[in-house]
């Protein structure tokens, strides 16, 4: 449904997003996790045709966001960080307006507006002026706005920010209910939010993707492993199997070939277990060549240190 390949965005001298590649399948809810200023909003703005990328391609439902921008816009609903509300309008008139510019005709609006108000539980506020609504209701009007034309893809930028705990739970339930019918990308800097709502997570830091996996895998990986990078000269298959068989190794993945003649391997081990001695012994014993071996700095973990790992507490 969503394809992004080698996307880069440079503002002047600052690179906001660098060489990002990922894809999202139909009906999936993807969490876009990262500390503030990691490039989440930039990526979303490129996806929604708000601004063009410096290089790389992005497409939604097969339409290029730059070349076929009108087709893309018809298929996306977008909730920016600040809900784009006209504060002097009533909720109902506002939704009619948004529906209008998204291309819904008058007859369809008559049924669609009450439908999305029902879905986002703002029916009771239909006649109220947006300026007078509480933050929670405004956020919901923002979500209703993104849903009005029943888009294939929903892009939600920090949808729960600034809400109180009860509202947060309600909004998350709402988003969870949207998966299946809609493909959803939601950005957040709150770790538990992702595990609660998303099937898959992409972690982004300083404009680069540092991890991409299902929520469960990612949590497991985070919980207990150290990484080691080794470059070994020898028959690939055999090397991989033998390393995996070492005590303490939890996973081995082949990396792109390194500088030398050998192949690169990323070895994940149990926490606190140093397998370097065993590994060296294995390689030498087999008559292979150990060209390089170094522990890999856990960028993932570092990123997580910057993330809010707990719910923000509401000031009393």
């Amino acid at each position, binding site marked *: 449904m969503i394809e992004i390949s080698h996307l880069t965005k440079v503002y002047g001298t600052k690179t906001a997003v660098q060489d990002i590649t990922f894809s999202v399948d139909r009906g999936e809810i993807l969490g876009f996790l990262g500390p503030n200023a990691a490039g989440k909003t930039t990526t979303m703005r490129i996806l929604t045709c708000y601004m063009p990328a410096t290089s790389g391609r992005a497409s939604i439902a097969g339409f290029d966001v730059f070349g076929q921008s009108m087709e893309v816009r018809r298929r996306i609903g977008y909730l920016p960080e600040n809900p784009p509300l006209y504060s002097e*309008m009533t909720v109902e008139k506002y939704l009619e*307006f948004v529906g209008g510019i998204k291309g819904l005709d008058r007859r369809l609006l008559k049924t669609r507006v009450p439908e999305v108000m029902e879905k986002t539980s703002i029916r009771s506020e239909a006649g109220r002026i947006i300026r007078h609504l509480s933050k929670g209701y405004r956020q919901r009007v923002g979500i209703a706005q993104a849903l009005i034309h029943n888009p294939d893809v929903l892009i939600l930028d920090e949808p729960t920010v600034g809400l109180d705990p009860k509202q947060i739970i309600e909004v998350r339930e709402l988003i969870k209910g949207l998966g299946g019918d809609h493909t959803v990308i939601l950005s957040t800097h709150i770790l538990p939010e992702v595990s609660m709502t998303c099937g898959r997570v992409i972690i982004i830091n300083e404009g680069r993707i540092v991890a991409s996996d299902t929520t469960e895998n990612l949590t497991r990986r985070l919980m207990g492993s150290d990484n080691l990078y080794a470059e070994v000269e020898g028959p690939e298959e055999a090397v991989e199997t033998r390393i995996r068989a070492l005590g303490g190794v939890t996973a081995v993945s082949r990396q792109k070939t390194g500088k030398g003649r050998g192949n690169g391997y990323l070895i994940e081990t149990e926490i606190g277990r140093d397998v370097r001695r065993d590994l060296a012994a294995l390689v030498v014993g087999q008559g292979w060549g150990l060209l390089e071996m170094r522990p890999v700095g856990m960028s993932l973990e570092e990123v997580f240190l910057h993330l809010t790992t707990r719910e923000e507490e509401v000031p009393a």
Partner: protein
Amino acid sequence: MRNTWIIFRRELRSYFSSPLAYAVMAGFLLIAGFFFYAILTSFLNTAMRSEMQAQYYRMAPPPINVNLMALRPFFHNLAVVLIFTVPLITMRLYAEEFRNGTIELLATSPLRNWETVLGKSLAAFVLYASLIAGTLVYVAVLFFSGKPEPGQIFTSYVGLLLLGGAFVAVGTFLSTLTENQIVAGFLTIILLLLFWVVGWADEFAGPAVGSVLAYVSLLSHFDEFAKGVIDLKDVVLYLSFIGFFLFLTHLSLESKRWRTR
């Protein structure tokens, strides 16, 4: 076209759901009313004096023309007041969208930039037209108490509409340059004043430059309408001026897309 209509309707409704439209209308009609009263009083004084003189010298009273002596200066004054009024109408058009972030909604909806430009400037123009329509009341007073020439009044209003269209186009453009409404409004006033006073420079700017300056001076063209003359070259000037600035607005929005942070 449908999108333009939707933008237009929202924009117009938004004008009338804020105090701005009412404040601008009340203020403008108050000032216009004052000018009308002052000019009419002085016209009546002149008329009375010349009548008395004529009686004293036992001559036929000289012809006195209300169109030339009262309405023409009245419309000219209106045009100057509009330099300060129209920017108040146009300054919010885009600046407010940038400030509130609603531009993200417009820019990610299946709308073309020119569609919003047309819808927005049209809404501002309609508000402007209703402002001008308010002054018809004063003109009607003249018809009760005298015999003004309707033709010149008609051409004056045509001129006011074209002039206002040009003002609105300039204001719409400048509103895309900043997210601060006050700055947008102030820049519009300055630019409109410039377009007025460049005409004065034609005397000392040399023949070639001077004629160009005189030609782009917006108010000097309006004077022709106030005299009762509709000249194609004036109409063309205003229309191309409007088209040019609306095009600039469109370009400004397009380029913004590449610059946004």
